[in-house]
Structures are given as structure tokens and as C-alpha cells.
């Protein structure tokens, strides 16, 4: 209850922070536009003949939707955690009677409205290209919102777990780099998953990366049928719970170590 009472204020202050850091945030948002490079590349490839069911128009829709989903589900908690653990700044958060992850989550969520400013024009272009259409059915809209929330939660929890590893090592940046490389390859960030060979595609359906990006994109563009959406949501939310559990376990172990050895 106390957390629920505090959360609106945390969001408001987080939003004020996002506005104060707007220039930095804009630059950071632009670093998430790698799919636009992929878009140029794959459009050129598709100029002569479609790749699978992706012609030029489909690639435009897919990669713009990818940028949109990435903007709406991104988080930076891993960098903040690593830096605060290394500098000892985390101590000031630990002195407050609220779980630090609650405050981090509010800061990250509060930036979403600002990121929507970049996402909306992309979405309009994607829809105008005729590559897909926004879900209109209430159930489809609910599925989209649920999948975006799930993607954000997995991203946040995985980043938290990796950032928290800095309690145990000098820095966990390198581990995050490995995770990021896997994410780029296996989430549909650089190319649609269905263009991979069948066995790779099947593997990605069992890994968390798809549910952090490609899955909401598929719903957004109407590429997934109702059965696939339902199945995907179940897998996605299992990953949410699992990553949340892992994040909390690593966090607790990290705090025990911090308590034993200091910052």
C-alpha cells in the first residue's frame, strides 16, 4: 500500500528528471535507432525481390515498429546500478524505507511519455506505409499493451540482475555487452526472426529475447494470429516472473555481500 501511495509522486519526479535530461535522453533514444540502418539495408535487398513475405513495404513497417517498441520498452537501469554500486552512491538509496528497485522502475517508466514523442511519428510512418495496421479490437489492444508491459518488465529485470552482479565483480558491463549482443541477434532487432533458418527461429521462440521485442512488434503489425498471441503471452509472462525472481535473488545476495564487505 505504501508503495502504491508513493508511486505517483515517484513517477512525477521521474518525469521531471527525464525532462531535465531531455538532451541526453534524445541522444540515447537515437542510439536505439539501429533498426533504421537495417531498414535501409533490407529495403535495398528487397528492391529486386521480396525476402520471404517481406517486401520493401513490409520491411519499412517492421523496422519502424521495432524502433517504436524499443522506445517504449527500453530501460537504462543496468548502467545506473553499476555506476551507483561502484561509486557507493547506492548507499543513499538503501537508507530509505522503500526498495531501491521501486524507485529505479518509476524513473524508467516516467521517461516513456518523452520517448513516445519519438515513437509516435515512427508509428505514423509505419502505418502510412501500409505495412500493417494498428490493432483495433479491444482484445488485440489489450494483448499489445500486455506484451509491451511484459517486454519492459523482462528488460528491466534482466538489466537489474546483470547490474546487481557488480556487487560481486569489479563491473558487470562486459556481461551486459554479451547479453546485448545476444539480444540484437535473437530478438528481431536486426532482422525479422522468421527470416532465420527454421531451427534458429524455433530456438528463438524458446528464448527470452523474442518476448522483449519481436513479439510485441508482431502483435503491433498484425503478424501473429490469436493462438500465437495467446501462446506468446503465456511464455512472455513466465519469463517476466522468472526474470523478476532471478533479479530479486541476485539483489538479495548482492546486498548480503555489500553488507559483509562494504561498497
Amino acid at each position, binding site marked *: 500500500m505504501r508503495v502504491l501511495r508513493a508511486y505517483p509522486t*515517484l513517477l512525477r*519526479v521521474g518525469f521531471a*528528471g527525464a525532462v*531535465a535530461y531531455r538532451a541526453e535522453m534524445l541522444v540515447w533514444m537515437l542510439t536505439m535507432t539501429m533498426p533504421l540502418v537495417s531498414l535501409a539495408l533490407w529495403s535495398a535487398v528487397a528492391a529486386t525481390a521480396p525476402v520471404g513475405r517481406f517486401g520493401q513495404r513490409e520491411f519499412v513497417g517492421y523496422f519502424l515498429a521495432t524502433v517504436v517498441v524499443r522506445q517504449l520498452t527500453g530501460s537504462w537501469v543496468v548502467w545506473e546500478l553499476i555506476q551507483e554500486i561502484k561509486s557507493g*552512491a547506492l*548507499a543513499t538509496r*538503501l537508507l530509505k524505507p522503500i526498495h531501491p528497485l521501486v524507485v529505479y522502475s518509476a524513473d524508467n517508466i516516467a521517461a516513456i511519455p518523452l520517448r513516445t514523442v519519438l515513437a509516435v511519428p515512427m508509428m505514423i510512418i509505419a502505418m502510412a506505409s501500409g505495412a500493417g495496421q494498428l490493432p483495433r479490437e479491444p482484445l488485440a489492444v489489450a494483448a499489445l499493451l500486455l506484451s509491451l508491459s511484459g517486454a519492459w518488465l523482462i528488460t528491466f529485470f534482466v538489466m537489474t540482475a546483470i547490474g546487481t552482479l557488480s556487487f560481486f565483480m569489479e563491473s558487470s558491463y562486459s556481461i551486459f555487452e554479451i547479453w546485448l549482443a545476444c539480444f540484437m541477434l535473437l530478438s528481431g532487432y536486426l532482422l525479422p526472426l522468421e527470416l532465420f533458418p527454421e531451427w534458429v527461429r524455433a530456438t528463438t521462440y524458446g528464448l527470452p529475447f523474442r518476448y522483449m521485442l519481436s513479439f510485441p512488434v508482431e502483435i503491433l503489425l498484425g503478424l501473429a494470429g490469436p493462438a500465437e498471441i495467446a501462446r506468446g503471452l503465456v511464455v512472455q509472462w513466465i519469463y517476466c516472473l522468472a526474470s523478476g525472481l532471478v533479479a530479486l535473488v541476485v539483489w538479495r545476495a548482492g546486498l548480503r555481500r555489500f*553488507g*559483509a564487505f562494504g*561498497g
Partner: protein
Amino acid sequence: MTSERGIEVASLSKDYRVHSRQAGLWNTVRSVFHRKYETVHAVRDLSFRIEPGERVGFLGPNGAGKTTTLKVLAGLLHPTSGAVTVAGHKPQLREYWFLKRITLVMGQKQQLIWDLPPVETFAQNRAIYDIDRDRFEQTMKELDQLLGISEIASKPTRQLSLGERMKCELAAALLHRPEVLFLDEPTIGLDVSMQLAVRDFIRDYNERTGATTLLTSHYMDDVAALCPRVIVIDRGRLCYDGDLRKLVQTIRPDKSIVLRYTERPDRAALERIGTVTEYDSIKAVVRVPQQEVRDAVAHLLLDPKLHDLTIEDPPLEEVLRELFARTAEEGA
């Protein structure tokens, strides 16, 4: 069991295991395969008790274990051994009600949000500490009376001076009216007038609220002005716990008489009164045992060349230096 606002530390020890490596390329390569660790005993068998409402100075040289002890008391670090109770709680459990009742102000770390005005940090703390609006506004008004922050609290933190930031840090740390204050170098880097303002504020807060206060500072004037009692540690061990004046009297049972003359004084005459520690054409400082001060002053006042005379306690820094030297000798 301590009373609700007191602090009790019994045989506290805190060890760290730290990685050690010699300089040089070979040692760097070797450390990749074979890491050497050593145990640092930051605090050893430390015991003390602080009654509710007391203001206590916590002193010691760099690396003595002061900040480690404060972090244990605030629940950031777990004791290696021994027992700690703060306001009836075990700090390392970091319970909600414990965190609501304490604050730790670290002069070298800030909780204010750097690019936002301090009012935003205050609002955030109001939500986190679940302070109702009326009480929040009442506390803000009181803090403003003591610190004069209403005008600066709306400017971005990064644009405030160090002193203004520290005032806002104190306000942010005290918004929830903590009953136990841990202050780690709260005046570090501040100019003299701002040090005085912060000092006055701490005394006032303690007297108004009866909050138990444990203060570390490298500025001995802070400690002398605020803390009737001091706890002194060196290399993690307790050296002294008691009345500040008694410490000074025990370690340096003499006073310094500072004399200013219109022309050069007679050095031999001064040496007959006490030990001359400073001497030049118009100024001299003579150290005399406390019980002889009265006679010495009476004698010195007879000199027609004397322009001014003041009696001073030895500086606290000197007293502590001597205390640490004695402790080291005893240890050896």
C-alpha cells in the same frame, strides 16, 4: 536493551577482505591467476552506549573506522561480530520502521537529485517516508526557519553553492523527523560562516526534537561546539569515551596564555612563569599548568608593556594527536 532512541554497541568488530597487489606489469599479470587477499580489521571490539537525546562526537584519524561504524549503525554494513542496537532495532535487518527513524548524512555523498531543484527531492522523500501533507508542510516551515532554504530550494541543485546544497541535504535528510541522526562530516568543504550555520542548526534540531546525534567531523571546532561527550577511536579500537573537557584536562592539563606586547617582552621573565611555546617581538605564548593560571596572569598583568592577554585551551587537534601517540605507545 536500549531505550527507544538510544544506541548500544557491544563488542562490535567489522573486518573487510581486500584484494592486494604490488605495482608493476608482472604483478598485474600474476593477479589475474592468483589473487592475494588480506583482511582489514576496520573496527575491533568496540563498545559504547549513547543515551536518547545525547550529542556525541565520534573522533579518530583517517582510517580509524568511524565511517565503517556509522555504516554499521545505519544498517548499510553487517557486523562481523558483536551486537548493535539502534532505537530498539537491529540495523542490519533494515526494517521499515528502523529506516523511518534514522538518517545518515554523509558530507561527501548527496541524495539531492542533481539536475532538479531540491523541492523535487523533498517531494520524493515525502512520498517515500509516507509523510502526510500537513506534517510535511509544518516540517518544511520549521526547516526553513532554521536553514533559510525557501529561496534556494527552487533552483536546480547543480546551480547551488556547496553551502546551499548542504543546507538542502540536511533538510532532505530530516524531513521525516528522524529520532537518531548519524552525521558523517556534515561541514566538510564549507566556509566558516556556513560551518557555524550548520552547527547551530544541528544543535537546534537536537534541542527541539531530542534526537540522538552521533557526529564525525575533522573540524574540531564542530565537535567542541556541539558535543559534550566524545568517543575516540584509533585503528578500530576505542581510545576514549567520556566528557570532552575531561579529555582535554587529562591529556593536556595546561592552558596557553597568549600575550601581545607594545614592545619586545623579556623572555627570561616569561620562562620563569611557564613554558614559552612562541616568542617574537610583540607576541608570546606561555603554557602553564591549569592550577597556576591565576597566579601567572596576575604576575603577567604587572608588565606595563602588555597590550592584550587571552587564555586558551590547547587545540583539540593537539590533544587528539597526543592521545593517539599515547595509545600507539601503549599498544607497542
